[in-house]
């Protein structure tokens, strides 16, 4: 049995009904699986279906279990392992508050520019930056903001979709 840990992004299409998120989260906590990130929102016009994107880590056997366990939940329509299925796009959005004056403040604006982060709120002593990108890009941005007066981080968690014309 391999102990190799893998990180997988899994998309789950579910009935948009009360308790469905609790079922998914309960599955992960009850069976001791990791959740690195989880996002959910209704995705069809009538609001009957929601799409959950969950990023998890585990051995290949555990990843297979997670998918099989998700698939067996009654309100789950489809489970797609985006990491296993091929190329896909992953994005996360973050709102990041940096406070301070003087050189640090100017430096934060310079870095934000390099990262194509937008200042969506500013006062004389603070910025709120909006940044979209991969997890790694956001991690890097946060690391750079740390010494420049970073006070608040809010991240959406990952959303992901397969590349190419095929739909889920």
């Amino acid at each position, binding site marked *: *049995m391999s102990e190799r840990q893998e990180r997988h992004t899994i998309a789950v299409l579910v*009935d948009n009904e*009360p*308790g469905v998120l*609790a*079922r998914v989260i*309960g599955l992960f906590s*009850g069976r001791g699986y990791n959740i690195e990130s989880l996002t959910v929102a209704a995705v069809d016009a009538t609001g009957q279906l929601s799409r959950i994107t969950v990023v998890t880590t585990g051995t290949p*056997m555990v990843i*297979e*279990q997670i998918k*099989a*366990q998700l*698939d*067996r*939940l*009654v*309100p*789950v*329509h489809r489970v797609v392992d985006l990491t296993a299925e091929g190329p896909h796009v992953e994005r996360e959005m973050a709102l990041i508050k940096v406070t301070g004056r003087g050189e640090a403040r100017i430096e934060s604006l310079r870095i934000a520019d390099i990262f194509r982060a937008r200042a969506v709120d500013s006062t004389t002593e603070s910025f709120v930056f909006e940044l979209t990108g991969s997890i790694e890009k956001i991690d890097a941005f946060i690391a750079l903001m740390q010494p420049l007066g970073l006070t608040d981080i809010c991240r959406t968690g990952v959303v992901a979709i397969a590349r190419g014309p095929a739909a889920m």
Partner: protein
Amino acid sequence: MSESQQHDAERPMSGAEIIVRALIEQGVEVVFGYPGGAVLPIYDALFQQNSIRHILVRQEAGAVHAAEGYARSTGRPGVVLVTSGPGATNAVTGLTDALMDSIPIVCLTGQVATHMIGNDAFQEADTVGITRPCTKHNWLVKSTDDLARVVHEAFYVATHGRPGPVVIDLPKDVCINKGRYQAAGGVAHPSYRPRTKGDPARVAEAVELLAGAKRAIFYAGGGVINSGPQAAELLTELVRATGFPITNTLMGLGAYPASDPQFLGMLGMHGTYEANLAMHNCDVMVAVGARFDDRVTGRLDAFSPNSRKIHIDIDPSSINKNVPVAVPIVGDAGSVLQDMLTLWRQRGSQGDRAALAAWWQQIDGWRNRNCLAYRQDGKVIKPQHAIKRLYELTRARDAYFTTEVGQHQMWAAQYLKFERPNRWMTSGGLGTMGYGLPAAIGVQIAHPEALVVDVAGEASFLMNMQELATARQYRLPVKVFIVNNQWMGMVRQWQELLHGSRYSESYMDSLPDFVKLAESFGAVGLRADSVDQLDAVIAEMIATPNLVIADIRVEQRENCFPMIPSGRAHYEMILGDGASADTPDVTDAGLALV
């Protein structure tokens, strides 16, 4: 539907009437339940009809276990009705039990009125929250118009795919308000469509693997029973056609006729020597409706290390969960076995006959250890002997057996022999003490003429003995066969073997006089104190047309063997002292004592 019924369908009905009507349409004949404020509207609707019989239990856990016994002995879903709050929480153990053992149960729970939910109202509990992890699915119904659809969906979910318990939580106002009925025909589940037909390519691969095997074994579990009696027949045909041995899990007993020479008995922690060693030494394993539970596999990294495994299961999440398999086949056991049998016959293969003979020779060597032998010397009844005699004196009667949990359960699994499925009801996955008596009640309700015996331990029996009153109320001639060792025997055994004989809180002090107890419930009480009384007591128990408690006083310190201490490998079995000495062709390097 008749015209008057059709007309009826359009007439607005109360929620409670809709529920009862939906149950009737689902073919429900019996509901096990206990009333309370939140479900009074449903009890009122039950009172005004004659199609469904309600069985009043004495505690809600008893209702679920009774429904489990009913379900497991008939193949039909068991139905439960309990009130909100404590009614629902009392049902939780039974629901968890049914989930672990894949028993189809539809449990209706009362709930406070919708506008009071979340206010800590009297007898409010977050039932869907509490039961989410112990049900296959659950629903809180918020509108009377949804009731019929949800009930039909609930039966569909409970009985399709891997069966399991479901809960429908029913706020009181939803049951009182008027709404419209919806017939079952119009209800198809939008997302839940389990696969039942195995992938033909995989089936072919499995048959090829089996045909090339030199030392194959079938390992069949409760999934075969759940699939229906036909699956057990197909399994029997396939096993006989191949000539390979078969072992059953605790839940699978009865899936293959125990009297057949190819049957090696149960495997696992208290399984037979030959079954466990055959599993350990096989080159191809065919797991059918079994889930590689830790009580079966023992230490995982030493489990059947040299075999290629075929796993047939309706639940994809059971496959590759504990043990990686070479050929996974997702599908219904009956359907896949049928396909395998057809292919096996088409192939006209006899397999490797010489290898098969050698394999059987090896197995017979293990069998000759006679691992279930015990010494009945002296007057004190050996518990194994009590159960063996129970079997021998009931074997002609197509009896149904339930058990409680402990040593007596394992001895029952070892010494009762089942020729058919659906005759054996035991709490396997959860190991719930107190399961046996209510389960026996459920069985007896479904099979009023049959001999139904609860093989009990005295400690377990005390956990749900209030159900004696239920049995008495409905004149159910259930037989409670108490293997009374005055200890929580299984706990005592582990303490002896693994905790230096420090018997911490495992002695059952202050036991009731079971004969008087029986009499106080209007039952017949019998007692056997010594081995010369045993047969007469069993015979009298069988002959008595009433509820009976037979208090069988047995050896207090007997241990249940064979035993694989938990966390050990299959070859590390401890045998009882009745078993024969080592035979030359057995390598028991690992026959370690703890």
